[in-house]
């Protein structure tokens, strides 16, 4: 099915190259890289993940700056190949600990072995568990008896200019990483009032998923009755369940920006960020960005007096304002003032030339939906040892945007 698999560095160097069928010429990595690099003449525009050059189909995914590429000449399922590439990257990462050029080069023998199992067998597939039986080395990492369950929610919100929510969405994943010996069965219980699809709406307070799907190791026998999942986790990190919510939720941040002309070549921008979550919780690595009018020549920033951990920057090249806040405590509010100087007079509406405001952040131990892991049960006979069980929550911004 796949003719070749290769991994290229950012500069286009071959890190791994494997030919499975000898039906695509060997110069394909170069052809591929040139095509991707010059997809758009002017900029490094993203090439689509699937394209055809001279009868050869190239698939690629970008992971940690590396390009994982597969070629084929036949009409295969593209989502299968792309999933395969993603999974391959994940399995290799599980074994190497970290994905970069160096770790590849140091472990190339192992990588080739993994590839053989993953791709050539094609049809049998990743999940570290399967590869473990056929690959000589063991995955790296710790050996303590423990299990991690992470509820990761990526939220997208679009506010209109008056702060009203236009669209909002949660993409959630329950991720599991098990280091338990003997592969015991695990039960994960979720909120009992969880409902799927809006048809069986159970009143306010219930968590309503628009849709969800499950890893193939998950048994759903009692899911419909008591919302518990049972599974024997494979090794390595894997998603137990993915879910999607469009039910309204309280956005963790309110942001708005005001832009006013203060003179013929001057304007002032005021950006306000308010954290609307509990004060016991902190958001990390908050970054607010806003495109400014094209003719912006200079920006003077004015932070609130006494704040720490704030950075401001004006990215000249793409005329973007960046405001970084290392830590934002729940309930707090921050303001940034920026005085803009233009090199030319604006001809239109200044509001039209600036914005929208966008924001990225990570909030540990906070989830936007009320979906919860109620308990995590490890079915193991022995009473003597009690493995560590970790359930963590994190909310991240996917596309968090306020229009002006």
């Amino acid at each position: 099915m796949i003719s070749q698999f290769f991994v290229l560095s950012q500069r286009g160097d071959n890190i791994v190259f494997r030919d499975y069928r000898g039906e695509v010429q060997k110069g394909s990595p170069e052809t591929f890289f040139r095509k991707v690099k010059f997809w758009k003449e002017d900029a490094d525009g993203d090439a689509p993940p699937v394209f055809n050059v001279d009868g050869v189909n190239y698939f690629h995914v970008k992971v940690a700056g590396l390009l994982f590429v597969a070629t084929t000449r036949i009409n295969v399922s593209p989502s299968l190949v792309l999933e395969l590439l993603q999974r391959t990257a994940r399995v290799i990462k599980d074994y190497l600990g970290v994905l970069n050029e160096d770790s590849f080069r140091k472990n190339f023998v192992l990588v080739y072995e993994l590839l053989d199992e993953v791709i050539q067998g094609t049809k049998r597939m990743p999940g570290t568990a399967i590869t473990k039986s056929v690959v000589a080395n063991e995955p790296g990492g710790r050996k303590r008896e423990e299990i991690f369950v992470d509820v990761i929610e990526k939220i997208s919100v679009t506010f209109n200019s008056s702060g009203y929510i236009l669209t909002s969405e949660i993409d959630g994943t329950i991720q599991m990483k098990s280091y338990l010996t003997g592969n015991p069965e695990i039960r994960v219980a979720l909120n009992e009032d969880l409902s799927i699809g809006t048809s069986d709406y159970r009143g306010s307070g219930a968590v309503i998923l628009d849709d969800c799907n499950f890893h193939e190791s998950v048994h759903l026998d009692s899911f419909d009755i008591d919302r518990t999942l049972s599974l024997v986790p494979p090794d390595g990190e894997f998603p137990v369940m993915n879910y999607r919510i469009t039910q309204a939720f309280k956005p963790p941040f309110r942001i708005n920006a005001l832009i006013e002309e203060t003179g013929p070549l001057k304007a002032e921008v005021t950006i306000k960020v308010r954290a609307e979550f509990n004060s016991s919780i902190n958001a990390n690595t908050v970054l607010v960005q806003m495109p400014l009018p094209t003719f912006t020549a200079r920006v003077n920033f004015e932070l609130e007096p006494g704040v720490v951990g704030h950075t401001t920057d004006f990215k000249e090249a793409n005329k973007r304002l960046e405001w970084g806040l290392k830590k934002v405590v729940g309930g707090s509010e921050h303001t940034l003032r920026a005085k803009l100087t233009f090199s030319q007079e604006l001809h239109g509406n200044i509001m039209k030339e600036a914005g929208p405001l966008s924001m990225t952040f990570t909030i540990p131990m906070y989830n936007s939906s009320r979906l919860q892991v109620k308990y995590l049960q490890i079915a193991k006979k022995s009473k003597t040892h009690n493995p560590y069980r970790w359930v963590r929550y994190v909310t991240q911004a996917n596309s968090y945007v306020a229009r002006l």
Partner: protein
Amino acid sequence: MSRNDSKYFSTTKKGEIPELKEELNSQYKDKRKDAVKKVIAAMTVGKDVSSLFTDVVNCMQTENLELKKLVYLYLINYAKSQPDLAILAVNTFVKDSQDPNPLIRALAVRTMGCIRVDKITEYLCDPLQRCLKDDDPYVRKTAAICVAKLYDINAELVEDRGFLESLKDLISDNNPMVVANAVAALAEIQDNSSRPIFEITTHTLSKLLTALNECTEWGQVFILDALSRYKAADAREAENIVERVTPRLQHANCAVVLSAVKMILQQMELITSTDVVRNLCKKMAPPLVTLLSAEPEIQYVALRNINLIVQRRPTILAHEIKVFFCKYNDPIYVKMEKLEIMIKLASDRNIDQVLLEFKEYATEVDVDFVRKAVRAIGRCAIKLERAAERCISVLLELIKIKVNYVVQEAIIVIKDIFRRYPNTYESIIATLCESLDTLDEPEAKASMIWIIGEYAERIDNADELLESFLESFPEEPALVQLQLLTATVKLFLKKPTEGPQQMIQVVLNNATMETDNPDLRDRAYIYWRLLSTDPEAAKDVVLAEKPVITDDSNNLDPSLLDELLVNIATLSSVYHKPPEAFVTRTHSSAQKTEDDEYPDGIESESSVNPANGPGSPPTSSYTIPASPPPAAAPVPDLLGDLIGMDNNSIVPLDQPATPSGPPLPIVLPASTGQGLQVSAQLTRRDGQVFYSMLFENNSQVPLDGFMIQFNKNTFGLAAAGPLQVPQLQPGTSTRILLPMVMFQNMSQGPPSSVLQVALKNNQQPVWYFNDKILFHVFFTEDGRMERATFLETWRSLPDSNEVSKDFPAIVIGGVDATVERLAASNIFFIAKRKNANQDVFYFSAKLPRGIPLLVELTTAVGNPGVKCAIKTPSPEMSTFIFEAIETLLRS
């Protein structure tokens, strides 16, 4: 050549290859294993370690699984270039295929399937037969895949040995993994064959549906894809199948979901109950939307498929338009696809929301995306009559922002809106005319001109407006010229006054006398005759009522759409092209090995390159007899050095097989080369420079181990990979194409066209010879220019960059033949004009790194004497350029 030149071969480093050889033959296991690892590492970065073949294969007999895998890896890579040696490995393969360890059995069969050497495949059959019936499911599934590979190499063999039957038996295997792989193998074989091989019966259907529940996600994809070919007998059977497949929609793997969707859509065609269909649509919608939460690469595939699905079943996602709104951090390829789907889902109900989004996108940074957003507004106007007015007011708002490309895009779509709703929105023309000066793109200009011509009677100063365009008529692109011609005629017919009359004269003159564009000329003549014979008829023709255009947002042809829907969840559905349009696999033929080695089309050499074409016999003046070799060079050191050279990312072409071709100039005569004669010349093919070489062995001994190195030269030419010449028996010859790269080892000092080459083999001393670099191999394929670009480039270069030279002896006989010959060398004809009794020809070309080259040839056709003037940012190259042009003109 001076003796000093030998220094670029000398090195003090001991060769890597001999060192590895030593280690591979070490008595210590660990050392051997390390050595094999080093060999594989070298192979990965593109070094040629094929000379170690025997030594590596010797390590194959080992109990160590890791080492065995590495040796197999090496074998797969080099077996093809060393087929005779590869046979040595067969015994071990056969033995391994009976190893007690199932992993080794599977590995052996799998590796044999990867080695595309005919002699090996013969030996593969027996082990394969055994493995298809192995006790271990892992071995059976590996063998199943191997059958598909073997079919690709030798279909007959597979059929003769009954492998297809064995494969079909595996569908009933008790292990679902084996079933899935057998299905995948059969499906692939079916794709490669025109005969029906794999037909799904009711019996296999139920087997496969059962296996579906038990096998892994990847197996599920293969089974679903195979089953989607099954035609259910009636609606009831279809419903039953769908019921078994629907739970797959809940799978976390997007490939499984898409394949299940395809299968359901397929069966839905048969289902008659509207309730069932509606219910199925409702079930499919959430999983389809969830695909958009996956990685962007997968989102892209999903969106391309959804695009097709909503064309057939618009109701599925009618209420989900919000999920297609673009996120600011979506990659551009995702945004573009989302936009396309938003247009398709736009309706009277959601148009306000959609317009709000489009308006927002139209102020984003990415120019292509902005243009598409503006166009989307226009398409919605055309699609939704009741929303047209709102769309237009958004467009007018955008025009007021005065961002140049937004304005131009808006004008293009407004022209379409006028054609959809004639006599409705003309009041906005005045606003459009305000932006007239800013238009610089042909399509926008042409649209504006069309609008002016079409509504000339309502625009008071239509003649002035058109006149402003007329000044630059000769320089405009064809698209604009055609519109100007038509618009002027319309204007004249509507307002037959003095001004327009003069204008029409100018335009018709321009369009008939001063142009090379036949479309423009013909159209002008038709108008001219119409106007001069019967102005009333001209009115009927030119001002005829145009048919109203319709919405093109469901733009796929229904029959194509049908075909694509069958191919949902395949590449076809991503490209929106039927499979035969891009699947170019050639099937099981003896020539296949050669096809694989080269990019397409390289074999058709004689017609491609005029330098080698029959028309240009090799001039012996290019060959400077090689000087006698210096005292025996330090061969082993040289070897190490040569191995290390130029081995960048290009992996060697294994066996360049170019059996015949035009004669090449001799660069190393047999008399100098102790019986070895080499002829060679640089040539250009498919956008790459090659060193085309012919080796003739007139000596008494077989020659092998050929290596080549190029001295530093003005253009930095160097070999892109090692020279691959097979052993040359006495009295035989071989031709090869050595890919070359530029800008690798540039020499300083004055430019020179001399190429110094050193060549060695295992039997003879190092030979040195000089060749002459033919400059025209550097002209790149993208040298063709628009006339406007040519003029602009000519003007932008200072006069100091213009150099000229006379070729007093050259005669240009046939113009067409000359133009064609130059074009074959990537010097493209732009225009021709007469100057007194001489003809002046203009050509464009491009040098590497995109440096433009403009050429002007002045001559009296048929008489001797050509004046050649060139203009380029790199005038220092002019000597070479003149030389090249002179060579090309002399035929």
